[in-house]
């Protein structure tokens, strides 16, 4: 006896979905037969707004693209503008940029710990990890002045130098967080319920990964080793020593294992950066922003953020305002075509866990 097919709207107001988007599913009993995503609840038309703003004013719009981690967007904008103009960045600024990027990656991992476990019912983990993330945000507040939107990395370097005694505070916070990561492992990865609910769920195999153009931790969870910090290095990543972890299987369990190792590699990178930091200037001064023009040309740069690959394409026509700023986030691929493909055949109760694991963040999709 077959059940009748019903249509459900897992809608914009739901405690289980990551952000403000809708998934329309057709179910028979408890199994999903067809899924359609609908986005557009957060569309602000960023790329239209920057047609009226000059090069330095566009930089203030950049960090609001993807809300949980805002520094990779600023960094790729700055690097693209420097590539078109041919501007040199001093060495000390590059090391400081790498430190800020890796701290942002750690903070975003803490938020992911809370979200992934909250979707399965383990709310204790969210209280621990989001509470510890506040220590990293305290460091950001001392360095840049804001907790969430920093606006610190701009074309030519960084905005101000490190305050006195900052490196010791960073090292002390890293020691504390490394100890806490071991506690999270005991609660999350030695947990029989977590293993049973995540192994074999939401599988993305190698053929599907290449056909859909998958990036980031999802690709490393399939067994393919690919990381932009090693393939196409930028800033000072080619002078640093770190590993890129992979796992086999392609399900939620494999991706969680990959992310668990990446957090520890981030801590290793920050310690090397602090030990190797040179002296010198931190900023290559730009001329008067009201009259700053960039010669004609275009550039495309890629950055590795927490979710995957961010691509930023900038075209200039020789004026004081950019001609076109076109950004592509990692969730643009994972959130629409891949999600609709992975959800077929899964259980209705696992939608939230799959969305958290693939890293769908709606502000990045519709800008």
């Amino acid at each position, binding site marked *: 006896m077959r059940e009748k097919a019903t249509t459900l709207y897992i809608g914009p107001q739901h405690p289980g979905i990551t952000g403000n988007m809708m998934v329309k599913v057709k179910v028979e009993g408890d199994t999903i037969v067809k899924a*359609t995503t609908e986005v*557009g609840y957060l569309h602000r038309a960023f790329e239209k707004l920057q047609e009226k703003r000059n090069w330095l004013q566009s930089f203030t719009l950049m960090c609001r693209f993807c809300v949980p981690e805002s520094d990779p967007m600023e960094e790729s904008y700055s690097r693209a503008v420097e590539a078109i103009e041919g501007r040199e960045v001093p060495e000390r600024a590059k090391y400081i940029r790498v430190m800020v990027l890796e701290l942002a990656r750690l903070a975003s991992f803490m938020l992911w710990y809370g979200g992934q476990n909250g979707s399965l019912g383990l709310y204790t983990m969210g209280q621990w990890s989001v509470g510890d993330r506040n220590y990293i945000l305290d460091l950001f507040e001392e360095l840049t002045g804001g907790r969430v939107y920093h606006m610190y990395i701009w074309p030519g370097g960084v905005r101000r130098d490190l305050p006195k005694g900052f490196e010791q505070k960073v090292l002390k916070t890293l020691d504390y967080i490394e100890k806490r990561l071991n506690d999270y492992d005991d609660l999350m990865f030695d947990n029989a319920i977590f293993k049973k609910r995540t192994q074999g769920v939401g599988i993305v195999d190698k053929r599907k990964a290449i056909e859909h*153009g998958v990036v980031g931790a999802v690709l490393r969870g399939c067994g393919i080793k690919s990381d932009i910090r090693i*393939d196409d290095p930028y800033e000072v990543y080619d002078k640093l020593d770190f590993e890129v972890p992979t796992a086999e299987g392609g399900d939620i369990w494999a991706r969680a294992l990959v992310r668990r190792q990446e957090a520890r590699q981030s801590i290793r990178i920050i310690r090397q950066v602090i030990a190797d930091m040179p002296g010198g200037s931190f900023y290559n001064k730009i001329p008067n922003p009201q009259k700053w023009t960039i010669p004609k040309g275009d550039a495309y740069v890629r950055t590795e953020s927490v979710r995957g690959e961010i*691509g930023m394409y900038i075209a200039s026509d020789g004026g004081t305002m950019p001609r076109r700023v076109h950004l*592509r986030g990692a969730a643009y691929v994972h959130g629409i*075509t891949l999600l609709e493909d992975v959800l077929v055949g899964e259980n209705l109760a696992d939608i939230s866990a799959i969305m958290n694991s693939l890293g769908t963040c709606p502000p990045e999709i519709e800008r």
Partner: protein
Amino acid sequence: MQQLKANLIEHIKTSFKDAREKDYPNENRLDFYVNKQCIPSILTYAKDRLGYIHLSHIAIVDWLEEGEFELIYIIWSPEEKIKMFVRARVERENPVMPNIDMIWRQANTYEREFREMYGIQFQGLEGEQDFVLEDWDGPPPMRRDFDTEAYANETFFHRPGREDALDVREEIIKRSREEIPDFAKKYSR
């Protein structure tokens, strides 16, 4: 790397006669300017024979003065580590482009967005008509001749008090009756 780039140029130019190339010697980037009809065949050739398996981005620029859109397909090869830009132009009045949905599945999302935001028709594209906007009945909004500030002023209420853009420095001076120091004078408007 120069040797790899030279091999690449030779492979592409033997199969596609009217592709012009442009080289960037200091970066790992290579541009090709082609006609819009041979976009599916050149991308399939690069994916199957030359190892360019990853489609990174499809970018679009609106050149209003020349009356054309420019579409740029950016593909990447994990072994040779070179970015290849394939560029094509299409006219602004009734633009029609071929569909590359069957080569990479994620191109479906890009093409749906271009159809809604710029008005470009893709032959054989399936998918819902509305991608981001709902019940929109104006011109395609991302074209350069659509004025967003005028539309926003006309449709929505604004809180009064924003139209007067007072200069902060002059207001403070009026209030405290001081002089602007000389080093700060060159930053005033």
